[in-house]
């Protein structure tokens, strides 16, 4: 890469530590009219979502089917916003330099976990306990066993989700400490007070840097493990177990893998908006879009492989309950959602991202990311709305382990009502709103990692050209 290319790609513009600090602090402290407009819009939509939720609550929790879309949007946020921090964690472990402008933008989504925790509370009321003898990951919750609490899914899923949120917020806080200290030392008013509280005693001593390095690594690894664990529990107890006869060992892992795909898509779209409207075009460059685009492409292929691996086994197996499950989730009432998901999660990324001009562009990967996010939403609707619409759980006379094709043929897809639309729009808007508000306190661009890159990257002549030399810490 020549100097000219580097400049065009944003590398050559800010080459001093002071310059980077000054530029990023300035961007952090300014707020445009567009930002305020977005905050106002998402606030209104969030309030409408709360209204939708109140309407839904007045309908009670005894009819689980009407809560399907609520569960779907909870799972959607878990799959997108709460998975987005993995985009910071995995490349950081691999010491990939292109992550630096991405990492904070991705970690900031951990804040949305707080909202999803609130969304989770009503789901605990909607989920039936194990006393009716339904199949469960907590095998022996049947009332006469006395070994496992009938509310095991409620207890352990809550513990896991709370842990995920705590670890996530801790990760965001710890990795932001140096930047918060910078804000503390270079701002005034409410922002300075908040930053001072959050930055604590950070002075940038060698010991503090050493501890920060270790803690960010450990918290990242924990976040990954907790994310997989939460997907494991939620996907089984809040979806699979609600469909009698659905036994799919790959499904919890598919749920988590989809989260990685949608997490990357979330971050790509975030980067696009930060670049386009946030003034970060010197930092968020082709390198980031290209790197994440390749990752999203690979994860889209993984989506297909996992989907097909499950499908082929159930299709070949032809057990009565397997036929019923396929009828319900893939070829019956939710066939349009299945098609939408298949096209948007796999076909669109696959057929477009194989082309270099699209993959290697700053607009291509975010464009395809919108397709992936929409597909993920339809996938969650397909799985959760279908699961919540199966009648009979809680009724002792209904078989909890076998679903028949005839039963499914008599079912029709549950369509969203006005409260569902308000809830879905409100929850997604609330997530974005929380992100925007968090970005007012914590710089959305990781300043210290950006400055660190200046130490690790040099350009030097090599024969008749100039090359970039990148250092990698052992």
């Amino acid at each position, binding site marked *: 890469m020549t100097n000219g290319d580097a400049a065009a790609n944003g590398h050559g513009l800010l080459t001093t530590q002071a310059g980077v600090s000054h530029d990023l602090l300035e961007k952090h402290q300014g707020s445009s009219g567009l930002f305020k407009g977005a905050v106002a819009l998402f606030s209104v939509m969030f309030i409408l979502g709360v209204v939708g939720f109140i309407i839904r609550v007045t309908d009670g929790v005894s009819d689980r089917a009407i809560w399907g879309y609520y569960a779907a949007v909870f799972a959607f946020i878990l799959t997108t916003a709460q998975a987005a921090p993995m985009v910071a964690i995995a490349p950081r472990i691999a010491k990939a330099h292109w992550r630096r402008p991405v990492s904070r933008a991705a970690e900031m989504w951990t804040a949305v976990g707080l909202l999803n925790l609130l969304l989770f509370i009503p789901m605990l009321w909607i989920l039936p306990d194990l006393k009716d003898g339904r199949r469960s*990951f907590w*095998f022996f919750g049947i009332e006469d066993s006395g070994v496992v609490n009938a509310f095991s899914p409620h207890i352990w899923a809550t513990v896991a989700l709370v842990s995920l949120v705590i670890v996530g917020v801790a990760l965001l806080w710890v990795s932001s400490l140096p930047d918060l200290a910078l804000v503390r030392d270079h701002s005034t008013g409410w922002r300075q007070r908040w930053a001072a509280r959050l930055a604590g005693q950070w002075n940038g001593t060698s010991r503090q840097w050493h501890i920060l390095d270790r803690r960010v690594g450990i918290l990242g690894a924990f976040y990954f493990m907790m994310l997989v664990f939460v997907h494991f529990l939620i996907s089984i107890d809040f979806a699979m177990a609600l469909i009698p006869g659905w036994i799919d060992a790959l499904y919890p*892992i598919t749920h988590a893998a989809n989260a990685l795909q949608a997490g990357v898509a979330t971050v790509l779209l975030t980067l696009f908006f930060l670049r386009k409207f946030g003034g970060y075009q010197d930092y968020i460059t082709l390198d980031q879009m290209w790197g994440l685009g390749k990752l999203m492409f690979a994860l889209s292929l993984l989506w297909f492989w996992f989907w097909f*691996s499950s499908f082929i*086994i159930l299709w070949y197996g032809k057990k009565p309950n397997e036929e019923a499950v396929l009828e319900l989730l893939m070829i019956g009432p939710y066939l349009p959602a299945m098609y939408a998901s298949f096209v948007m999660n796999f076909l669109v990324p696959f057929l477009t991202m194989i082309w270099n001009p699209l993959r290697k562009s700053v607009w291509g990967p975010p464009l395809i990311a919108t397709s992936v996010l929409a597909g993920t939403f339809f996938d969650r609707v397909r799985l959760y709305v279908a699961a919540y619409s199966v009648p009979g759980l809680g009724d002792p006379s209904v078989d909890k382990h076998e679903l028949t094709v005839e039963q499914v043929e008599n079912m029709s897809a549950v369509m969203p009502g006005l409260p569902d639309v308000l809830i879905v729009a409100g929850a997604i808007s609330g997530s974005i709103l929380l992100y925007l508000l968090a970005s007012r306190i914590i710089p959305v661009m990781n300043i210290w990692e950006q400055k660190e890159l200046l130490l690790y990257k040099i350009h030097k002549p090599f024969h008749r050209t100039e*090359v970039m*030399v990148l*250092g990698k810490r052992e």
Partner: protein
Amino acid sequence: MQEHIQLDQKQINDDLLAGVLGMPKWWLAAVGGLSLVFLTGVGAFGWMINQGVGVTGLSRPIFWGFFMTNFVFWIGISHAGIMISAILRLTQAEWRRPITRAAEVMTVFSLSAAMMAAPMVHIGRPWRAYWVFPFDFSRGVWPNIRSPFIWDPAAVGTYLIASSLFVFVALIPDMAVIRDRTSGPVSRMYGFMCMGWRGTPRQWKLQAVAGILLSALVLPVFVSVHSIVSWDFAVQTAVNGWHSTIFAPYFIIGAIHSGVSAVAMIMALMVWLWKLDKYIRPDHFDAIGRLLIVVATTWLFFFFTEFIFALYTLEDAEIALREMQLFQRPYIFLFIIFIFTAYLIPVPLWMFKKVRRNMALMFWTTVLVNIGMWLERFLIIIPGLARKTPLSFNWGSYTPSLVEILMVTATFAWVGLGMLVFSKFFPLIPLFDIKEGMVFRDEIKIGRATVPASIRE
């Protein structure tokens, strides 16, 4: 890679071509010994063809035994080459350079061992192996393309061709180096194989593009091969323990676990036998050890999920099978050995940097992994078949016969033999890749520290 040793191009040529242009003292003896073992296996195969499959320990209801276990094992080992070469190449991991060739070659020989291990011998009448191909028009009988047993040869065959191409493309510049250092018919042979390589910028560019393209294109094949092998089992509902949706990724991650472990074994052998310690450093063992911790833990997670979901079915037969695997003799002993060797012993040891950087410990722990992963396949296949089901009518037990043991041993000899013969004709470490690594390597001073760096385009 802190322990890098900068070498000049002449020394690289001398070191890495020593086995090709000369012959280590032990080489002939090793080839002779392995040939003997292999030929004994071929003899056992001939005996089986002459006498029929009754000479094996297989009988109703256990029709799949050592052969099929060994087939799945070798398919697993063959995943190492692509894992190491294609994925590490695409992710530009610098530490891949000295180990790619050996891993790729192991892929080729282990795939051929897999084909020997089961399909060819297992069909009972190998002279009718061509029935899997749709060309016998006169009979009007066509292969059932809905059967995974028809997909198997297609996938394995494609993988074998793709991985051979992979090896070949990476060999071209090295063969040109050998061509220029030999004379007479030998030189002409290498000249023919390297197709007029002169090292022009265009040739280098084409070679690099071919390597990247093959890396990307071979990955779906790599995934399909073990997926299909797993579906040989998983599409069946008749055998307890097999009908699980997780089998494809579970088999693949298991394959990567055993395959990468096998690469670590080969690395140690290359240092011990060919004295390549200037190229394969403790850093490389450290890197592969860290990779193995991730792979092994992911495998354990899949194993746990597979097991848990067997219980989740709440089916009596499925739960009874798991009890049989865990608590009944002889499977309990095999299960304990399997779980300890595949995970509980090696992974905690690999957590220590000192262990990861110790070649002997890495060698023996990865040997353990492969013992464990062989047993894993055995425990998947045999206990499920041994149980009485509505279709198999009675219970069974299985003891491998001498014929099976000899034939399985022969596949190990075949892979070893193949690697040794290959090493006589081609360098086990790619010369051009090592030289490129030397050129791309650099250092950056940060304060008082020196950080290893590499040139990026």
